[in-house]
Structures are given as structure tokens and as C-alpha cells.
């Protein structure tokens, strides 16, 4: 992997460590107010400063990492499982099943990702569970499209046809002959899906539709900090920096992973084992969730 990708991996590792150990690393209770010290800037006692209620921003940022990780992982896990299963079904079954699945994907992709997430969170009510649900409702479409496209090509390959002629059942073909070849492109897609989910959760929390107080979330902290840009810019700066660095790290890691897999991946038809169709290249743009620009 390139040095940039290693740097991305290091940032991601730091984020994961902060999320896993956040409550232990946090120097203070993230919800404990100290009204007399509100909006104080960074100091030795509070390296990231204090917010409008005097709460320690470092502790809240560390706890916020956990929210991002939980939403990111849950959304990717649900979307990946659902999208892979549906994509395999559409790719192998073909016919009307494929048609129905692809039309459903078209309809969901007709909404800008963030819009559907906002609308669903609004009607379902703001909570962490509903954020994951709203993001997964959109998120599976990217995986389904990728898996379907790969499956359509893979099912024509010699090794799959050989397995069919030897009497292998659909489950055996999928688990032994198709899924292992999809692992690389799916890993790349999942990396970008994770970054998109982190941004989407922060966006929803920023709008007041995601994580609810007193649970610290980077998006909600940023929204709160907006009101104090003039007098206490640190309130918005540190959670903003946390989102930015996390997304940057994941994106760089995803780019590196994609390039690494593209180099390792044989060209279409070279050995009949893996087509270079809509695989890992371009996966970043095929994520159905809103990207950072959203």
C-alpha cells in the first residue's frame, strides 16, 4: 500500500481507538456542566476548551467518536448484508426478480441520499437506531448494484459453469465460487460506505434529527458551536476537525485499498476468474449515501 494509504490507516486506527476507549480516555464526564466556566478556550485542564454549559469538549469529542463508529459500523453491516443478498438474488435469478430489484434501486437512487435520510429520520423520530435504519434503507442500494453487476459477469465464467455442471447447488456456488471474488470490491465499497455513514450521521445530528442530547455527537456539537463562532470558535472547531480527519483518513485508506486491489486484480478474461467490470474502480462514487458534499 502507498504511504498515503498507510497514513489513512493510521488515522482510522486512531479513530477506532478513540471510539473503543473513548470513555476510558476521556478526562472528564462529557455531560457534567460547569456553568461558571462556559465557553472557555483551550487550557491545560481542558485541551479542547469548554462548551456553552462548561462541559469538556475533549471528553465530548472522544465520546462522539463512539457514536460515529456505532452508526458507521451498523449501517455498513446492515447495508452490506442486505445489498449483497439482494444483489446476488437479482444477478443469479435474472428475469422479473432482477427487474423489480433494479427498479426499486432506481427509485431509491432518485432521491439525493441525504434527503431520504432526513425525511425518514423526520417521520421515524430522532434516535440513533432510526438514523441507522434510515441510512441502511438507502445504503444497501450501492452494494446491491455492485454485487448484481459482478454476479451477472461471474455466472458466465468457466469456474462457475463447471461448478453448475458438476451439480453444485446455488448456495455452494455463491459461498465458494462467487462471494470470495466479491470480497475485494465489497471491502472498498464498505470503506467508502463507512465514511459516508459517518458524514450522514453527523449531518443528521447537525440538523437535530440524529443523536439526541445529552449523548455527545460531532454533528450536534458543531451545530451548537455555530452560535458562538464570534466569541468561542473552538466549540465548533474541534468536532469539525474530528469529522474532517476521520473522513479524510477513511477516504485515503479506501483509495489505497482500491488501487492495491486494482493492481492485484487480473484483467477481464485473462484467466477467466475475475472480470474487471464495475468492480472496485469507481466504487467511491457508487455509494448511495450522501458524501461529504451533502
Amino acid at each position, binding site marked *: 500500500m502507498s504511504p498515503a494509504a498507510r497514513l489513512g490507516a493510521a488515522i482510522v486506527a486512531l479513530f477506532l481507538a478513540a471510539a473503543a476507549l473513548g470513555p476510558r480516555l476521556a478526562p472528564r464526564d462529557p455531560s457534567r456542566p460547569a456553568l461558571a466556566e462556559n465557553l472557555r478556550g483551550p487550557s491545560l485542564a481542558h485541551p479542547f476548551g469548554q462548551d456553552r454549559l462548561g462541559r469538556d469538549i475533549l471528553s465530548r469529542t472522544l465520546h462522539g467518536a463512539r457514536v460515529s463508529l456505532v452508526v458507521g459500523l451498523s449501517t455498513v453491516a446492515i447495508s452490506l448484508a442486505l445489498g449483497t443478498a439482494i444483489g446476488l438474488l437479482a444477478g443469479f435469478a435474472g428475469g422479473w426478480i432482477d427487474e423489480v430489484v433494479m427498479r426499486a434501486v432506481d427509485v431509491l437512487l432518485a432521491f439525493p441520499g441525504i434527503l431520504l435520510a*432526513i425525511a425518514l429520520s423526520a417521520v421515524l423520530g430522532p434516535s440513533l437506531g432510526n438514523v441507522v435504519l434510515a441510512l441502511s434503507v438507502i445504503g444497501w442500494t450501492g452494494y446491491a448494484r455492485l454485487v448484481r453487476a459482478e454476479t451477472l459477469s461471474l455466472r458466465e465464467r468457466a469456474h462457475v459453469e463447471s461448478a453448475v455442471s458438476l451439480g453444485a447447488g446455488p448456495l455452494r456456488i455463491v459461498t465458494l465460487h462467487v462471494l470470495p471474488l466479491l470480497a475485494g470490491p465489497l471491502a472498498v465499497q464498505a470503506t467508502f460506505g463507512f465514511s459516508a455513514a459517518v458524514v450522514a450521521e453527523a449531518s443528521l445530528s447537525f440538523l437535530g434529527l440524529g443523536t439526541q442530547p445529552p449523548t455527545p455527537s460531532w454533528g450536534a456539537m458543531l451545530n451548537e458551536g455555530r452560535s458562538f463562532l464570534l466569541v468561542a470558535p473552538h466549540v465548533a472547531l474541534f468536532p469539525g476537525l474530528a469529522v474532517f480527519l476521520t473522513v479524510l483518513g477513511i477516504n485515503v485508506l479506501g483509495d489505497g485499498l482500491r488501487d492495491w486491489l486494482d493492481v492485484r486484480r487480473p484483467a477481464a478474461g485473462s484467466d477467466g476468474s475475475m472480470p474487471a467490470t464495475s468492480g472496485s474502480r469507481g466504487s467511491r462514487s457508487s455509494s448511495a449515501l450522501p458524501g*461529504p*458534499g451533502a
Partner: protein
Amino acid sequence: MSALLRRLALALPTLLGVVTLVFFFVHLVPGDPVEMMLGESAAVVDRERMRAALGLDRPLWSQYLGFLARTARGDLGRSLRDGAPVAGLIRARLPATLALAGAAGALAVALAIPLGVLSARHRGRWLDAAATAFALLGAALPNFVLGPLLVLLFSVRLGWLPVSGADSAAGLLLPAATLGLGMSAILTRLTRTAVLDSLGADFIRTARAKGLSEARVFFRHALRGALLPVTTVFGLQLGSLLGGAIITETIFAWPGIGRLTLQAIEGRDYPLVQGCVLVIACGYVAANLLTDLAYQRLDPRVRFGGREAR
């Protein structure tokens, strides 16, 4: 003309699906949507009146068909807040959003194409590294992070620009930059790749072999070919700007449809939420449709249905 009609016909089932999904939004509300809108303490009479006004007292299929018929006529219902027609409220806010999205798109292109071209022309040099860094950082900056940062720098610290203001060009700059930077990062990267691919193509070698000047080879042949994929992605991204406008308009108190959507959500004004979501989604579908048609117009090799002109 037939290609246009065929593409329009393909968009119709998608639009029907969008309308259907939007219709069911209100029915996804856990519990009683009327209670959610009016609160638990509302009188029974008021609840029943609201239920009748929304048509929720009718069978689901009848509500659905009514919704389809009304939507086809452009009637998006009435706002619960003041009874004003939803279509009118949206129409009043749409120009501000279109101005914002247009300015963001223009800014993104104005930055991305020169940067991407320079990056490709100076491959491996510091300019390339700078443009790549811009693309990488821009793609990692969500607009709810970028917006406050720009306000802090250009309005609070330097005092160069107003925070916002729909009535002046200066007031449009920061919201447009916030909305357009992510798109600009994507387009810079894409332009660089497309120009490099184009410069390595056979037709460029042929153009050079014919003795054309380097400037002519680049601008008439390489850049023209490279801009095709850029146009496609630009069109697709233009649609997604409408979604991104919700956050940008909230940050800058921009009087557009994105802010209206959020205000409707906060006020539990579900007919207005439905209307806004529907209009933004239709705008997105229309942007994708126009992109397909523009691509066909720009590239004579492309024909719908996978056929290619010889």
C-alpha cells in the same frame, strides 16, 4: 426525438416510484400521524377535522389514488401551519435554491476544470500535488464543517464577506462555496484523470502526426474528449446539490426550499415535507435525465439502448 421520448418513458416509472414512496412517508409515522402533528392534548374534534383534511379517514388505496391525481395536477396539498398551498410555498422558495445551486455548480466548474487540466499537464510536479491535495481535502470536508469555517475566516476574522444575503452577489459567495467545494474536489480529480486518459489516446497521436500545433491538439482534441465524462458527473452532481442545499441553507439562513424542508420537519407539517421532498427528488431525476440527453448530444457515439453509431 425518439431517443428523448424513450428516455422520458424510462423516467416515468422512477417518478411514479418516487411519488409512491413520498405518499407512504406520512404512513411511516409511528402511531397516529395526526396525534404527532397536533400533539397528544389536541381535542378529538380537531383530530377528526385534521384526519378528514388530510384524507386519512379514507381507505389507503383511495388516499393513494387521490394523491397521485392531485400530484399529477401540480396540487401538493395545503400546509398545516397556515393553510397555504404547498405548491405556492415551494414556488416562492425555489428561485433562491436554484440560484444557490447554480452558483455552486458554476464555482465548482470554474475551479475544477483549470485545476484538473493544470494538474494533468504538470503531472508529478508541485502543481499536480497541490491540486491532488485540494481534491482530497475538499472531498473530506462536509459542508456543515466547511460552512462555519468559511464564516469564521471570511466574515468573522477578515470581514471580507457578509455571512449571507440572498439579495447580493457577495452574500451568495460563501453559501455557494460551501455547497460547491465538495463537487469541485470530485470534478478536479475526474478532469485530471480524463485529460491524462485523453492525452494517451490514439486520436491524439494521430492529431500530432498530422502536424497540428500542441495548443490545437490539446484544446480541440484532448480537452474536448476529456470533458465528456466531466459533463456527465457534473450533471449528476448538480442534482445532488439540491439535497446538499438543505444543510447549506440551514447554515446560512438561505431562504430556499432546503430550509423550507427543515422548517416543515421541525413544525411537523407533513404535507409540506412531502411536497418539498417530492420537488427535490423530481429535480434530481430531471437533472439526471438532462445529463443523459446532454451526453448523447455531446458524444455522437452514444445511442440509447447500447447501440453505437458507425
